């Protein structure tokens, strides 16, 4: 219950931001941090809780983004109507990739490579077909009204992405205290043991990749609504896949707040390096790389791991264990 309260307090505080500042760049930083957190939350479900490290989460992101753009541009759909279809498509792509790779027991780096390959295949396909605008991409017409899921100011986008992040937080919270979540973490830690205890390993992993895919597709849909444009590289390129896994790895995999914390640290770091080094292209990526190496070496459990370790040391004292 304490965690649930924490989730709502956090979201309420972030929701106050547009009232406290009208600085566009400040709101933009919050929006982009939340957006990165959403991608991280999506990856965290499958990678952090399920132990299936995907290196091609862009495949879900891009599918959501293209569903959003194609339905609006080619079929004249309303954005609100397109949104559930985008989520469903992300989930369906997850089911497809999951069914194939989990049926044949792909694990570890093999699974990572297969997801990477799928993202590349989708990138090439979207680069080829007129349907997706091919290499030129798709431009979503500007209709700045909430009825079309577009907003005049930054505040609207902040509330939209905050709603998605809230959904991600609640989903993660549920994973931590449900039978399904317990099964998923058991599968992550040891598939044979889980199977011996009556867990349907295949189904559990499939459900995880479908949830992860839907949430990632929400990220893609948001991207299209924010930037009104999508092309094969933005949708299915490796940058999104990397952004999705950096947050949870740095913040703490398989934790509620890890993806948010990781996203905040990365974006804070990005701003800081930009401030110190100026606009040297790619300097923030170098900083990310250094942080990632340091984290993996010294804090494999992420920043959250620091607090956890302390909490456990404190507990040890009174239980005498």
């Amino acid at each position: 219950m304490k965690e649930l309260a924490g989730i709502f307090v956090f979201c309420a505080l972030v929701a106050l931001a547009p009232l406290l500042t009208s600085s566009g760049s400040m709101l933009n930083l919050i929006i982009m941090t939340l957006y990165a957190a959403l991608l991280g939350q999506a990856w965290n479900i499958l990678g952090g809780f399920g132990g299936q490290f995907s290196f091609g989460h862009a495949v879900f992101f891009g599918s959501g983004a293209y569903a959003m753009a194609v339905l609006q541009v080619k079929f004249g759909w309303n954005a609100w109507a397109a949104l559930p279809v985008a989520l469903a498509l992300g989930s369906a792509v997850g089911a497809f990739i999951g069914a194939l790779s989990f049926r044949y027991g792909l694990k570890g780096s093999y699974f990572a490579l297969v997801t990477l390959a799928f993202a590349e295949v989708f990138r090439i396909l979207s680069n080829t077909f007129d349907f997706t605008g091919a290499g030129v991409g798709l431009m979503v017409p500007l209709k700045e009204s909430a009825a079309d899921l577009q907003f005049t100011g930054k505040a609207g986008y902040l509330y939209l992405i905050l709603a998605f992040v809230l959904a991600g937080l609640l989903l993660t919270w549920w994973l931590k205290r449900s039978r399904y979540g317990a099964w998923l973490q058991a599968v992550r830690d040891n598939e044979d043991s889980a199977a011996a205890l009556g867990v349907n390993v295949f189904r559990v992993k499939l459900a995880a990749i479908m949830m992860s895919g839907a949430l990632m597709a929400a990220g893609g849909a948001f991207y299209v609504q924010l930037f009104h444009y999508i092309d094969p590289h933005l949708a299915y390129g490796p940058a999104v896949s990397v952004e999705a896994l950096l947050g949870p790895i740095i913040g703490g995999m398989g934790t509620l707040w890890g993806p948010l914390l990781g996203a905040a640290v990365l974006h804070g770091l990005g701003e800081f390096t930009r401030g110190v080094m100026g606009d040297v292209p790619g300097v923030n990526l170098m900083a990310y790389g250094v942080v990632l190496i340091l984290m993996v070496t010294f804090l494999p459990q992420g920043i959250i791991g620091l607090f956890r370790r302390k909490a456990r040391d404190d507990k040890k004292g009174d239980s005498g264990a």
Partner: protein
Amino acid sequence: MLEARGLSISFGGLRAVGDVTLSVPKGAIVGLIGPNGAGKSTLFGLVSGFLKPDSGSVHFLGRDITGLAPHLICRLGMTRTFQIVQPFGAQTVRENIAVGAHLRHASRRDALAYAEAVATRVGLAPQLNKLALNLTVAGRKRLELARALATEPQLLLLDEVLAGLNPQEITEVIPVIRQIRDTGVTVLMIEHVMQAVMNLAESVYVLSNGQLIAQGSPAEITGNTRVIEAYLGHGTAERLRKAAEANHA
């Protein structure tokens, strides 16, 4: 309760288990012994659904379960432990056991409460909040046992739960296993620790080179020529008998 008939499996050219037939009656503790590499764990794999036999059948509670997936077999009421303990290391003892409890308890609260009860039965209650990876070997073996018990099985397959324990720990765990049987759980156990087999099992199967070579009460088994030779080499029984006669003379 459990009937295995003519089970065989080969890996490449190696016949790991050949034509093994065994039965475990309800309420019993049955031992399965044999030298290293005899195929005991492979046989467990065949019975519990982790391996599909090349030929033969497995019946559990009168139902043909040959080739059924492990999680479905577990749902029917048979579960196994692993010789090399496989805890969910990143989780606490309580959470580990709850995974097993969730099979028959949907709500998190019920599963955690049941986990606590099971932990008490195997003597893990003081360590409920410890991370599984921080347990000693003996603790991990108990955890393996507790997790399996939490699925509320009718038949429990124990794969060397006593291996790696010191004599003190062994004498502590033996009554735990007996008490598990006394609460109505049938047990089939692979064990190297003869003290435990003699103490617990009513009937013992001996496996050597993938074949069943003997079956009987523990006392019968320890006097069986073929069993002695399987462990100590061909002709040993004859030599031992002669040596004994020479001593008497």
